[in-house]
Structure formats: C-alpha cells, structure tokens
C-alpha cells in the first residue's frame, strides 16, 4: 500500500502504449506517476535538509559567534542557489500535497487530477520566478555588480 499513489483512477489519455511502439520499451508512465515520483524525491530531500537545519540552529545554544560563523555559509552563492532549490522542492511538495488531498477527499478530484497538475505547475512558476529573484538578488549583485 502506498499513501500517495491515489492519482491512478483519473488517469486518462495515457501515452503508455505509444511509448513502447515509438522508442523501445522504456515505461514513460503518466504525468500522475511522475508527480508521485517527484513527491517522494522532494519529500526525502526536505527531510534530510531538516536534519541538518535543526543541528545548525542548535548552535545558537553553543555561542552567538559559532552560530553566526556557520550561518554565513548559508549566504554564499552556491548554498544560496541550493536554497532556491529547497524552496522549489518544498513548494512543489506542498502544492502536490494539496492535489493529493483533493483527489482523496473531493468527489471530482480523481477526474480532474491531471488538470490540477497543470494548475500546480503554473502556480509553482508564478511563485518561483519572483521568489528566486528576491532570494538571489543580493548574491547576483555582489557577484556581478562589483559590490
């Protein structure tokens, strides 16, 4: 039993059959399946980050200087980019979680699960574009704007 694979009933117009005819036997699945895969991957990544994040925050109990030193690494360009990735992963997980709940509890949910997938895609982009802009602004200015 899986707790998140509840999108199968509404999956219509699958391209499974065409996939094997056109290019070998690779199972390309249905968008609903890939959203389930992505839900797992983003969930696991977020869980591992949570482990690190609680430990780095625990440094506030060691000393202010120790905490400040470690938190500086969060402000470096590469880690800053990883933070955009984290926000993107969490946002997808949240939006797709709403979709899974609607499939489970809303009578029309299974029928419109694929439409909801496109809706969360649009919402994700609409939030991530300004979100990434504000998250990366200072990093980009420092890197390319000569301080």
């Amino acid at each position: 039993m899986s707790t998140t694979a509840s999108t199968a009933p509404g999956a219509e117009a699958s391209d499974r059959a065409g996939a094997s005819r056109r290019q070998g036997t690779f199972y390309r699945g249905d968008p609903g399946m890939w959203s389930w895969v992505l839900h797992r991957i983003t969930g696991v990544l977020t869980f591992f980050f949570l482990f690190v994040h609680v430990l780095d925050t625990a440094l506030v109990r060691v000393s202010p200087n120790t905490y400040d030193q470690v938190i500086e690494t969060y402000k470096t360009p590469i880690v800053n980019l990883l933070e955009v990735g984290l926000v993107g992963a969490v946002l997808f997980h949240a939006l797709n979680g709403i979709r899974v709940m609607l499939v489970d509890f809303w009578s029309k949910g299974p029928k419109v699960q694929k439409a909801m997938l496109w809706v969360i895609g649009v919402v994700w982009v609409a939030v991530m574009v300004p979100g990434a802009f504000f998250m990366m602004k200072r990093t980009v200015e420092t890197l390319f704007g000569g301080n």
Partner: protein
Amino acid sequence: MADLALANPRAPKRPAARRSNFELYSWLFMRISGLALIILVLGHLLIMNILDGGVHRINWGFVAGRWASPFWQFWDLSMLWLAEIHGGNGLRTIIDDYARKDSTRFWLKILLYVSMALILAVGTMVIFTFDPNMPAN
C-alpha cells in the same frame, strides 16, 4: 445437504481484536499535518528566505529577536514536531517500499527512529532553553 465443516472462507485470518488501524491513522496524520505544514513551512521559508533581504539578515541576534515572542516559539516548536513526524512517516513508507530484506528494513527503520528522536530532542531543548543573554563567545 451434507454437513460440511467448512470455516467461513472470508473470515479474516487474524482475529479482529488484533488488527490495528495504525496505517489508517498514519494516512490521516499525513493529510492533517500536511495542511498545517503548508502554513507553517511556507510561512517560515517566506520570512527567512524571501522577505526583506532573506537569508542575509539572519544571525544570532535575529533568532534571539524572534524567539523573544512566544508566538514564534510555538510556531517553530509545532513546525519541528509536525515536520519531523510527517517526514519520518514518509521515510518509513519509502523504506517499506524499497528495502528488500527484512534485516535491511529493520536496521534502516532503527536508524530513522534514532535520528527522529535525536532531532526532536535537540530541537525542543534548543527552543525551550535558548538564552538571549549569552555572551558572544
């Protein structure tokens, strides 16, 4: 009719009293905690990473300022417990799905539960025992 001593073929193999609803409650918990985490986590990410300079304004003093308010202490404490149990339960499902041997499954779950206990204990301790008057070094 010949009298056939046939036990009810559809009777559950285990007696009803021994069956548990654990998986049902865990399924329900994922949805309820997920709903709360949408507010808690997305709010946290918005404040810490996006608004007003984002991560660049975070330092020890910033944390001290936030935890001066019981509201944010409660926010962070609920977020910690809900996220750790929600994520831990998700990982439990994943271990059940992909571990091929019972011993692998067993040890991965031990590792998972130990890490969950560690994170919950450390995180809770830090929120409750934070000292805003700590010297810099």
